[in-house]
């Protein structure tokens, strides 16, 4: 535990604590518990608790070899774990930039249990060390950038003053690496319209030539200067105030008219009015104090038609506390001068009309409620989605060049851990089509049964993730247990478990309040390119199995639902599990697709298989019995582009339910 131990002499008390830690292992799984289950790992049975955030974990469990982007993200997650922390790697070839694993094993349940026993010993002995090495990796580098508290769009690598308002820029930490981390870093909204001068400094360019003018700071009205310059307190440019003629003491109307009549910028500018940051209804033509709360009035551009606008909405929220998003507060800035009126003026307003701070929060690639490897970056407007960026950290093209068919099938299956059997089937069919050979009817049926078994397991795995996301712990546990028991089971065992599985699905549908949570959520409009269970849940007869002679022989008919929302998708998957149980019962035999010997074939072959998530398409090109290219179109590719529209302006929990209901697999998506 070179980078994982905590500094400290190994005293008796620390030994005791380390012993407790070794027995209380809490794992953060990368790429995710969905992948762990699909690989046949039963973490609960092995005695591992799962953590929802790396902050609460002491074990980073790496399942399989991770693509480079995902390893970078895993490094960030590891760095976020409090020490003592350990890495448990199962079936992973390479971990860098992560430090070396503290325990390793093959990617099986037996391997997990054995590696866990090793890990407990390592933790008990090595949780505390007299000398520890700090962990550092390029993925963790951050740099300091400087930004203006009033103009977050102003970002500079060096300290200095804001080019818009002249305020001293404040330091802010920013990530130097690109992969989305798990850890939400609050960042300034980069989505503001380009620099619109604040009303408070709108007059800064209009220096008065003839009449005596005074200058003041928009933030510190007590600062009065006869000359233009910078505020001694915050460094902002001073703005001119319309100085009252010396000796003129009246505050009556005549003065104002008089004043405005002779104002030097009548024609081009709106007159300056003053308002209270807390009471926008207080409008005065002169600076002074608010009659309600005594605060200094701040200048605004008079907009007679806009006195009742949204600017003073109380929901403007936390933006007022500039110190929060930007780091240390500046000496001398009194917080109440960060008036909400000014701060929210140029902010984009969402559909509900409220102006709030927009924060960018990464959900994924290891978010517990989403598929592992899916990087969802949501810009949140309050708790509603303002912008969505989707990225697969486990995508990319399929490496095929020079592989033999058998190698390709293994490689291709491993690249989609969530549907390995369906992808084996896909690869085998494509290769066979290239060679114009076909398996006999019995093998074809047995293969189809294996694909159906995986469909059951995959849908149950989805149900487990979905239940975890919606807080149904019992359902998560039961679904996960059933997935693990069925995904490698032979036909007779599946038949034996069918009744209890059906009873479970019945109970799932009858879960109280499920309708209130799911109905109407995640609806995709008609005419969108949807596939698989998502399409069938909205009544579209889209199924690659229809018309396939193997399935025809098994009496397959497309099952569809109505509604097209998250609830309909849940029901659809339950229906499909029942249907697959019947298909397996009729097939009577089951065998995982194995590549046939196709000889030294040269040619092109393609195939389409209805995977648990929809139709997947593969084109392979062979030259002399070796692969040249493989072009893969995964089913989730159709859905990933629909995400942004689907969750726009939704509340965050609803949005995640909607995303979850699509059962996306980021594996093999175009990078």
């Amino acid at each position: 535990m070179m980078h994982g131990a905590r500094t400290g002499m190994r005293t008796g008390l620390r030994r005791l604590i380390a012993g407790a830690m070794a027995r209380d292992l809490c794992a953060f799984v990368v790429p995710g518990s969905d992948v762990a289950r699909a690989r046949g790992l039963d973490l609960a049975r092995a005695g591992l608790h799962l953590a929802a955030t790396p902050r609460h974990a002491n074990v980073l469990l790496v399942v399989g070899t991770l693509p480079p982007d995902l390893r970078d993200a895993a490094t960030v997650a590891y760095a976020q774990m409090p020490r003592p922390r350990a890495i448990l790697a199962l079936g992973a070839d390479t971990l860098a930039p992560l430090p070396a694993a503290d325990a390793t094993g093959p990617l099986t349940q037996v391997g997990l249990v054995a590696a866990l026993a090793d890990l407990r010993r390592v933790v008990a002995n090595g949780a505390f060390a007299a000398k520890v090495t700090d962990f550092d990796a390029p993925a963790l580098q951050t740099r300091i950038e400087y930004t203006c508290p009033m103009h977050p769009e102003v970002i500079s690598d060096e300290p200095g003053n804001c080019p818009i308002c002249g305020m001293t820029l404040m330091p802010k930490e920013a990530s130097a690496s690109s992969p989305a981390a798990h850890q939400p870093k609050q960042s300034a909204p980069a989505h503001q319209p380009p620099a619109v001068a604040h009303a408070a400094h709108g007059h800064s360019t209009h220096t008065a030539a003839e009449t005596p003018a005074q200058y003041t700071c928009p933030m510190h009205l007590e600062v009065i200067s006869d000359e233009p310059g910078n505020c001694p307190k915050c460094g902002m440019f001073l703005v001119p105030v319309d100085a009252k003629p010396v000796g003129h003491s009246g505050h009556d109307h005549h003065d104002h008219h008089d004043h405005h009549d002779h104002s030097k910028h009548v024609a081009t500018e709106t007159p300056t009015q003053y308002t209270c940051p807390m009471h926008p209804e207080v409008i005065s033509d002169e600076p002074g104090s608010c009659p309600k709360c005594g605060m200094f009035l701040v200048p605004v551009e008079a907009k007679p038609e806009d006195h009742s606008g949204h600017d003073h909405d109380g929901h403007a929220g936390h933006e007022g506390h500039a110190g929060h998003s930007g780091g240390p507060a500046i000496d001398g800035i009194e917080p109440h001068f960060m008036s909400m009126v000014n701060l929210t003026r140029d902010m984009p307003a969402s559909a509900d009309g409220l102006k709030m701070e927009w924060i960018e929060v990464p959900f994924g690639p290891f978010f517990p409620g989403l598929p592992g490897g899916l990087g969802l970056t949501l810009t949140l407007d309050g708790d509603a989605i303002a912008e969505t960026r989707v990225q697969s950290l486990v995508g990319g093209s399929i490496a095929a060049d020079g592989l033999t068919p058998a190698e390709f099938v293994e490689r291709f299956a491993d690249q989609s851990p969530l549907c390995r059997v369906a992808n084996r089937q896909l690869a085998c069919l494509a290769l066979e089509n290239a060679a114009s050979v076909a398996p006999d009817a019995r093998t074809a049926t047995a293969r189809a049964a294996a694909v159906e078994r995986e469909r059951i397991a995959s849908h149950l795995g989805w149900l487990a993730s979905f239940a975890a996301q919606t807080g149904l712990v019992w359902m998560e546990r039961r679904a996960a247990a059933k997935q693990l028991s069925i995904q490698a089971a032979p036909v007779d065992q599946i038949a034996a478990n069918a009744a209890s599985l059906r009873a479970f699905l019945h109970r799932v549908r009858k879960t109280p309040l499920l309708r209130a949570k799911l109905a109407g959520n995640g609806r995709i409009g008609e005419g969108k390119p949807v596939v698989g269970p998502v399409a069938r849940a909205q009544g579209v007869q889209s199924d690659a199995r229809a018309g396939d002679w193997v399935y025809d022989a098994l009496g397959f008919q497309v099952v569809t639902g109505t509604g097209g929302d998250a609830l309909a998708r849940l029901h659809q998957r339950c229906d499909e599990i029942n249907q697959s149980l019947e298909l397996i019962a009729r097939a009577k035999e089951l065998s995982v697709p194995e590549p046939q010997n196709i000889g030294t074939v040269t040619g092109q072959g393609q195939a389409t298989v209805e995977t648990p998530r929809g139709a997947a398409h593969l084109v392979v090109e062979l030259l002399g019995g070796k692969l040249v290219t493989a072009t893969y179109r995964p089913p989730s590719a159709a859905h990933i582009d629909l995400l942004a529209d689907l969750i726009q302006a939704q509340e965050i929990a609803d949005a995640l339910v909607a995303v979850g209901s699509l059962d996306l697999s980021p594996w093999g998506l175009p990078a």
Partner: protein
Amino acid sequence: MSIAILLLTLTLGAYFIAVIEGWAVHGRFSLTRPALSAVALFGRESLLARTPDRLFFEAAPVLLLVAGLLAVAVIPLAPGLIIADLATGALFLNAALAYVLVALIMAGWGPNGGYAMIGGWRFLGQFIAYAMLIVMPITAVAMRAESLSTTMIVTSQADLWNVFYQPLGFVLFVLAAMGLAWLPPLDLPNAPGDLAGGVEAEYTGVRLAVLRLARMVIILALAGAIVTFYLGGWLGPWLPGWAWSVIKMLVVTTVMLTTGRLVPRVREADLLAAGWKLGIPLALANIFLVGVIALVVDI
């Protein structure tokens, strides 16, 4: 002496909650795991977030614990077995638990992270939904007892427990209590599935231990309040009074910790709609009914 007994009960009660919660979450009943977890937490680093609001971040778990302990202080286990027998005990309980909101918003704000902050503000919304449903049922209970003293409220139930006298108030109060203690399905501020821990997400080590302990104390205080207000407190045959209080509190905590997990997490909008459109009219009806019964029937 009585303080020592109360502290012991509190400690055992909090531990019991940890055991039950572990059973509900992980599906395994283990008497040792919470102790191991607690010891392990004390050995872990207490990390600070990147640019935290240090004061809020540090103060929130402590404030939460203090709020819970203050609330526990007015729960009677038996006649005389109470830390502070205030004449305004029921009101004091309510006042102490109001700080739960403050503490959670501080915990959400402090670490300067997205998940935590959304969790904190979510709890503000949740507060708006549950707050009236804590106060209004207590009003009806106090009407019958003609006192805000928690011991008087228990003795007023000698003939008939309030759970039978005002069942509507009981149901509303239990639901509101689950909202206050952010128990599933009302665990919006820490929502493991959609906020990855929410307000708890950035706490580690000792601070996390304090935060979790504080939550257990709050659950215990609320279970004590439910027992005191509706289930006749220490009243019961054969066994000594404190035993009845403890048994009833354990049953109530078990029900609160387990039943909510059978339904999906309630949507924030649905919670607010239910709280205001349904909960408050029902709570008003409860007050009215109790008032009429109190005038007409002499129990």
